[in-house]
């Protein structure tokens, strides 16, 4: 697999996962940007474990996920049912603090970045194929888990919370527990992405894990549509892929383009491109064709 | 009490064939009412009959999908609330209607948002009607009793130099003694020349005070007439007065 195609596909997969990590807590109206901080924490500590302690990739991956879940779980005690803006600012502060810590620790390479994260196969080509397989296996597994959740009784309860927290509480939905569960899951996905990203790039820079990246993941979620998990599968390839076809001078304006698209979609179609009625229509269409054939 | 038993020749307010919906729910269907200058008119009807919607539509809160409203000969069908207040309609909303974290004086001055320069004179008038508000003017409105709040809401409506006052459920939740006071004040205001549209669920007192009345059911005007006649109507007696 050529390097450029590998980077494109690998980062697209990670973007899908990260958009899902924002999708889950947004089911209860929370913008849990902390997942980007989870990416930093798990990515750096995972890379450190691989570099200095010689941990194998599988162990690092598990460490990253568990670390993400742990951090998410602990903070969710405080912000599991907090108002959306409080969750936002906790995420931002976390990102800022982890970035400062990384920049000031020589063990993590400081502002220069962390290099030389080991290959997980003997050849560079093998490394790429395995990483590609692991990333898309993760997309399938996480996607399937989210689908199971969305179609469960709990998933329907989150829709009630999205519309009206207090009303949902009167139906006997535990708003705080739900928020805690979703934040923990989202942070675990963030941790997973951190390790995947570290081993894809085989180097880490503190500059990557900032508000820039939040903007990218958030744009993908809202343009794809935040009411179903399927929207990001459409928006990530388009938003992440199309700029590569544009001239270099336009590409550098990627963030401005994302920002404008985000404003436009909120103005004309606030639920995003892929909505629940659309999914239902596609479902019946596919069903009809199956019966016809 | 005025003597007019039929619809006035030159109404200060004329609502003609008004229909208003919230989404799919139709709150008013082809409703028509008129109010003559110097009249007290009462709207009767159960909860959800459309009384509040009619009043809010007259003020310019809801956009009707058909029908027209004219005030003093001018069409105001799609004129927003703040302009209608400026030209002489004011509303005393049901229940709330006051800002409890602001002082009594601030609440009154809010009513005079459009004509602040004449507020000292108008304040004097309001304090003349409601002496208790003068004593409490620096107090937070949230500390007032239920009757005082209703007086404050009426006082605030008077601040904007209205010619027509819409009063939504003036007696709701008040003790009988205070209800009597409020209705006495409404009659006095009318005697000073203010045209008044009242809405009431419990109709006896309202019909006694008013010239004419309309009965609303599920958004339609089902009956209208002089208040004295309505008081004698057996259906009205059973539905709204008796009990």
């Amino acid at each position, binding site marked *: 697999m050529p390097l450029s195609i590998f980077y494109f596909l690998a980062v697209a997969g990670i973007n899908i996962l990260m958009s899902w990590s924002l999708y889950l807590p947004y089911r209860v109206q929370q913008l849990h940007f902390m997942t980007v901080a989870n990416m930093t924490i798990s990515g750096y500590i995972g890379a450190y474990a691989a570099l200095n302690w010689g941990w194998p990739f599988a162990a690092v991956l598990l460490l990253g996920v568990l670390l993400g879940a742990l951090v998410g779980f602990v903070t969710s005690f405080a912000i599991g049912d907090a*108002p959306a803006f409080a969750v936002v600012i906790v995420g931002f*502060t976390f990102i800022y603090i982890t970035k400062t810590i990384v*920049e*000031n620790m020589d063990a993590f390479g400081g502002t220069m970045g962390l290099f030389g994260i080991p290959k997980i196969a003997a050849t560079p080509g093998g490394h790429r194929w395995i990483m590609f397989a692991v990333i898309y296996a993760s997309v399938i597994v996480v996607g399937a888990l989210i689908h199971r959740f969305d179609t469960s009784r709990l998933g329907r309860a989150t829709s009630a919370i999205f519309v009206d927290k207090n009303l949902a509480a009167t139906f006997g939905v535990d708003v705080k527990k739900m928020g805690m569960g979703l934040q923990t899951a989202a942070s675990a996905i963030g941790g997973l992405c951190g390790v995947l990203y570290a081993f894809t790039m085989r180097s880490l820079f503190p500059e990557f894990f900032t508000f820039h990246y939040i903007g990218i993941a958030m744009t993908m979620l809202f343009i794809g549509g935040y009411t179903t998990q399927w929207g990001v599968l459409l928006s990530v390839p388009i938003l992440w892929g199309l700029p590569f076809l544009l001239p270099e001078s336009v590409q550098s304006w990627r963030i401005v383009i994302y920002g404008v698209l985000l*404003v436009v979609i909120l103005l004309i179609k606030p639920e995003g491109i892929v909505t629940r009625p659309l999914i239902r229509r596609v479902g019946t269409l596919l069903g009809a064709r199956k019966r016809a054939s | 009490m005025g003597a007019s038993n039929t619809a006035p020749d030159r109404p200060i307010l004329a609502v003609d064939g008004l229909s208003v919906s919230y989404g799919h729910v139709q709150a008013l269907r082809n409703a028509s009412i008129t109010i003559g200058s110097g009249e007290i008119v009462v709207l009767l009807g159960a909860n959800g009959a459309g009384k509040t919607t009619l009043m809010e539509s007259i003020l310019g809160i809801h956009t009707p999908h058909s029908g027209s409203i004219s005030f003093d000969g001018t069409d105001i069908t799609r004129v927003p609330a703040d302009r209608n207040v400026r030209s002489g309609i004011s509303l005393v909303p049901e229940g709330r209607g006051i*800002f409890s974290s*602001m002082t009594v004086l601030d609440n009154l001055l809010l009513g005079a*948002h459009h004509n602040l320069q004449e507020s000292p004179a108008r304040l004097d008038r309001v304090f003349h009607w409601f002496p208790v508000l003068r004593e409490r003017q620096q107090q937070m409105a949230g500390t007032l009793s239920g009757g005082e709040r209703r007086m404050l809401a009426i006082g605030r409506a008077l601040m904007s130099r209205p010619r027509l006052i819409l009063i939504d459920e003036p007696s709701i939740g008040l003790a009988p003694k205070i209800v009597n006071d409020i209705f006495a004040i409404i009659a006095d205001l009318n005697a000073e020349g203010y045209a008044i549209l009242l809405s009431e669920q419990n109709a006896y007192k309202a019909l006694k005070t008013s010239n004419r009345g309309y009965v609303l059911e599920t958004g339609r005007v089902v009956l209208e007439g002089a208040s004295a006649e309505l008081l004698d109507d057996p259906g009205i007696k059973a539905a709204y007065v008796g009990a």
Partner: protein
Amino acid sequence: MEVFIAQFMNGLSLGSIYVLLVTGFNLLLLVAMIIHFSYPQVVVFSMYISWVALRFTNNSIVVGVVAGIVSAIALNVVLAPLFQQVMRKRGHVDINATMVISLAIGMIITDILSHEFNSGFPIAFPENVRGDEELFGFGLIHISRGQVLSLLVGVVVVSAFFWLLYRTKYGRAFRAIAEDPDNARLVGIPIFQTGLLSYALTGLLGGLTAVLLSVLLGSASPGLGEAVAHKVLAVSIIAGLGNLVGGLVIGLALGILEAMVQGFITGTWSNAIAFVVLLVVILARPRGVFGMKL
């Protein structure tokens, strides 16, 4: 002790900037009913406009100040219909949607600044604007022109704002809408015009803040707005969203805290300490110390 006094003075002038920003943020929250997270980014954008104006007019301070203030007002008023449209689209007022729109606006502003102005490098304001000239000194205590100016303007502007809020009919209308927008409409308050006025007024506050920041810092960078935006949102959450007096107290406290940390702890860690304190307080009290007024 001298370090303490010196840093206390620094903290007061920095804090007065936070207070101005938090006050503008809260005004929009209460009257226009939006979370304008990127408001500080709009302010930094105005600093850049003012910098450009200074360059084209051979450092005319009057033009620089006017450009900063006018651009902040214009930008805020131009953004108003975007926010209003998003709120109307979702039927009822959806304050989260306004926050996402604001984040998107912030992304755009920051990226434009890092492309178009000075090739993305930090800009430096000319000598005659910078306020680092010392007015008087005593031992380690140096009081600069910028510090005195920002503290003075901060006090005057915040007092003027509270006067407007509690002594004028516009302030009365602001407070009425903040307490109960539906009822304010029934009373005859022009909701749209009053809302627009709050955008313009926050623009004015923002423009003044942009001028003060230029004088106090003497420079600006594309990322400045983001960093300040996070602190302003954190301050207003800790104070209790929409709580104007709370914002005053917490804004000053943050300024003093940051200055103290810088005075007594050296190194790149000092900036993170303020964030750690903010984080701890928010985690402990996600609904604010003084209570939300929303």
